[in-house]
């Protein structure tokens, strides 16, 4: 068993046992692993391959956690952590890209629609991150649901399992979280424009 596996497994157990400090140690490890995996995926040339965050998180889990010796709750905890880590990765890059575009002053050679899409994605991801942070302040669970589903790529059942709530609750909370985020982003845009 790799040392990181021991470490992550131990941290997950400690976190599951109520040690909040364990989470702070866990996130950077998962973060590094996700980045490494993502790069690895990007470089590998598998025909027809599409990189999905859920697959990435799953693989990170398999690599980081001694899953045969884990309690099932720990898996849920791991996914919650991984989705958070993933969010951080994405937003960091989105901000970097957004900044580069705005302030870089680079000469554009060719800039096609896909670039605009991802440029727009970057801007939107930043807006979403801001909104999620606001939502977390008043309703952490809804924020977590969005993280797991949208960033982590989990479906309703998986999300329910990770958060230990019913799928119906996930569904209900998802719809109000979505409406809240949508409204928050729209309001922020209006403010930006004026």
């Amino acid at each position, binding site marked *: 068993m790799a040392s990181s596996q021991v470490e992550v497994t131990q941290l997950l157990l400690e976190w599951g046992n109520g040690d909040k400090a364990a989470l702070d140690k866990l996130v950077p490890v998962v973060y590094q692993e996700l*980045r490494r995996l*993502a*790069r690895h*995926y*990007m*470089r*590998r*040339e*598998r*025909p*027809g*391959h*599409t*990189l*999905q*965050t859920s697959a990435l998180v799953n693989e990170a889990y398999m690599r980081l956690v001694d899953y045969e010796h884990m309690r099932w709750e720990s898996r849920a905890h791991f996914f919650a952590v991984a989705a958070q880590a993933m969010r951080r*990765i*994405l937003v*960091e*890059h*989105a901000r*970097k*890209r957004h900044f*580069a575009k705005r302030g*870089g002053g*680079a*000469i*554009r*050679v*060719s*800039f*096609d*629609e*896909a*670039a*605009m*899409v*991802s440029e727009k*994605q970057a801007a*939107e*991801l930043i807006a*979403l991150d801001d909104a999620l942070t606001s939502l977390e*302040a*008043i*309703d952490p669970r809804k924020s977590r649901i*969005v993280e797991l*589903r*949208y*960033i*982590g*790529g989990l479906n309703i059942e998986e999300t329910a399992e990770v958060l230990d709530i019913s799928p119906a609750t996930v569904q209900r909370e998802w*719809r*109000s979280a*979505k*409406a*809240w*985020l*949508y*409204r928050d982003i*729209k309001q922020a845009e209006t403010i930006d424009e004026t």
Partner: protein
Amino acid sequence: MKPDRWRQIDEIFQAAIDRGAADRAAFLDHACANDPSLRSEVEALIDSHDKAGSFIEAPVFEAAAELVEDSETESLIGRAIGPYKISAKLGAGGMGVVYLAEDSRFGRKVALKLLPVQFTSDENRLRRFQQEARAALALNHPNVITIFEIGRYDSTHFIATEFIDGHTLRDHLKGNSLGVNETLDISIQVAAALSAAHEAHIIHRDIKPENIMLRRDGYVKVLDFGLAKPSERQSASPESTTAFMRIDTDPGTVLGTVNYMSPEQARGLEVDERTDIFSLGVVLFEMLAGRTPFEGATPNDVIASILSREPQRIARYANEIPDALEWVVTKALVKEKTGRYQTAAELLADLKRLKQRLDFETLETLPDIAPGAVSTKTTSRTEIVDTDPEPGSQTGQVANSPTMSSAEYLITRIIRHKKAAALTSAALVAISAVAAWALIGLVGPSAPTTPFEKMKVTRLTTSGNVSQAAISPDGKYVAYATTSAGQQSIWLKHIPTSSDVQIVAPTKAFYHTDLVFSPDGNYVYYVQNAAANPVNALYRIPVLGGSPKKVRERIHGGLCFSPDGMQIALIRWRPSSHNSDESGGMKELLIVNADGSGERSLAERRIPLMLDNPAWSPDGRVIACTLTDTTDNGATVLQVRVDDGSEKTISSRKWFNAGHLEWLRDGSGLILSASESQSSPSQIWQLTTADGETRRITNDLNRYEHVRLTADSKTLVAVQGDQVSNIWIAPGGDSSRAKQVTSGLGKAGAGSIITIAGLIRGDCGGGISWTPDGRVVYHSMSSGKADIWIMDASGTNQRQLTTDAAFNFYPSVSADGRYVVFTSDRRGVPAIWRVNIDGTNPAPLTTDSGTYPRCSPDGKWVAYYAGGSGNNAIMRVPIEGGDAQQLTSQNGGGARPDYSPDGNQIVCNYVARNAADWFVQMATIPANGGEPMRLFNIFTLDLMREIHWTSDGRALTYIETRDGVSNIWGQPIEGGSPKQLTDFKSDLIFSFDWSRDGTLACARGTQNADVVLISGFR
């Protein structure tokens, strides 16, 4: 918001949603009683819920991948991908990230596009992409971005392209509209790019302002040819695109390009060339109107508009849009592709005609093209402006073939024998109008280009075979010389009626240069040059009919009248008086009376300085001339006082070459044709005498020569020319099996080469050489400069081997295929250089000047021609470097060597030094040097004529042009008459080579030149 408050809102929101729209109001009345702010919060949330749609429903999947990858590629700056050292990020797109990089092999800047891994991980997709990119690689056109290399380094696939210093049309537009002139300038270049691409069966599929670059020097470059494939992009429906946070209130940006889609593209149907025409139509509309023709709140609305709505008239958005232009745009935007322009060439032709037509509008001298005559009819395929006296003649030579292939610079150094010199003067005269200058170019700072909004250019002929033109002082007549079927004739066109009269009958015996009207407009004067002997004479013929009368003999050319019409200034070439004078004689500026009597020498220069193109100032006090130093720095403009012959340089500016000069009526300056470098076509310039300032009047890809002004200086005529040349491969030299393997290689730049410096015979005319493994190394201008390229014999895998700013030409591949030797002026003098077959390790083989290198079959030697310092020797130098040896004896000089296949002999053009009569023969000499072994009499004035031994060693082959058609002829080595080997029925051959298995590679093409009338240029 407090968590408690949110919980309250959330509960009511959930309950309201559960209830459905019908019961909602009543429920909210009850639940939010007495709390209007609660109610408005809940209602806002419900509203958001209804609008949110697909928002965040689909996970970030690929976005995540892309963003993560981005962080990795950013760190590439400072690193190397193969030979490419990355220095900055230029941009990013769906096709990958684009970096500015330096190609360490050539020290050139490139744009390096790294393909995203998602893209290359799909093998089918990658293969399709590579096929397309290879096709685009084969596309050499001045308006298409040049792809240098498509390659792979480790797992990274990349494309290296020309780095363009400029900005996109999108940046240029910035939401505004452009003027009609600018719109036409840009769209003509884009249409030209599309036309060339379509000819090569490449569809762009993504024409839009982002893919159109405007280079600082005015060239328009279309990007990403063959890189976009509709099956690879998301289809038109927004629903099918990855639904990453699409917020519907922000339309049109997610799918940025739907606005430029053709209806068939929007429907997801098969697309063909006509889809590009539609997209260009949208771009045209946008340039004129400042907005695209099909707009909508969402991509779906835009698509609906593309599919169903007719575009508004552009006139709604912009003023002074000509009806004809409106019509052209409408025709490009027809929804049914069968109703549209069917080819980009048609659209290009209409845009060009329209530009000419609009330019012509203000020319009141033409009753049938009066203002207002521009209508939709004008875009029909009928040429109204063109008045071609010989409509059947589509192609032809600009002048007789010997004139096109003579090299004044070199010849002047060759000939010292008196008679030889006299004969050479025929060649000199032949090219006097354009001058054949040294190999060294002057690439000076570009003059700022002034937009001449009111300038009108219109073509007066369409035969394409005009060599000379002059306009009468009143602007009513144009005299011009045409060459058809090898015979030159002079015509007079009455511009107001577009009628043509032949005033000098077609003849093969003479060719005519320096056409000029007498100041009273009664006569056309011209210099008659004998094609076969060096007796040149000044003639005049009455404008209203009559026979030509000889005015004076023994002149070189370049004549002009004094303002009062009483005197003529002309240039006389005086050969050296004795053999020891190696300079090639003198050129002098002479004044004679209008009847040819008397003479006064005003100024003279010893060749290699050349005095040409006299122009008498309106006050009669000075005569301006071009002064060209054929050994170094190009041409300047000099003025000589008529009273005392004192001289003054008017402008510090130096051009590579300058042609006819004409004074402006107010004496403020001169109009001239001049080119800035070998690779740039000759343009029309204005030179202000007071401050020596210059500015360009024309700025396009054509070349302009033989400028003549009307008396009021309001109108000028010039000969406008271009050239097309491509490489053909003919197995066994069988022209019926010949295949064209390149497309669009021809460039206007090459056109200027062909007339400026006869020894650079245009694009590809700068030499072709086979490699032992059957690839073709060739000279091309397609990089915008004179460079050496390599490709497969099929025309694929074209790659540039030289990239320095120098002039590189005449490649020859070594027998082992390791090296390419060529002529380059990168150190100032044209010398023999060597590079590895991949373009690396450039090394000079000679320090003295030399050209026309050929590698020996034993792989040890390079034979070449040394033309400096009065020498005209065949030399050789070891291919690995070392001392050069002279191969021709003291008794004769030679040029253009080629080895026999067995390596024992060298063939060359040979001039015997001591012969009583001077002429060029074909000779074989021992490979180790010595007296000629065999001599063949094949008439030519062209010491630089290309000769190649056939692969079986049995014949000496050369290009013979008869009646405007070139073929390869062979002189049997065992004697007998030369035989025609190829049977091409059209076009000129500029250069050729035989492979070891007897396959012929040749550069073939056409040259076109017509008279244009330009007004409003001041």
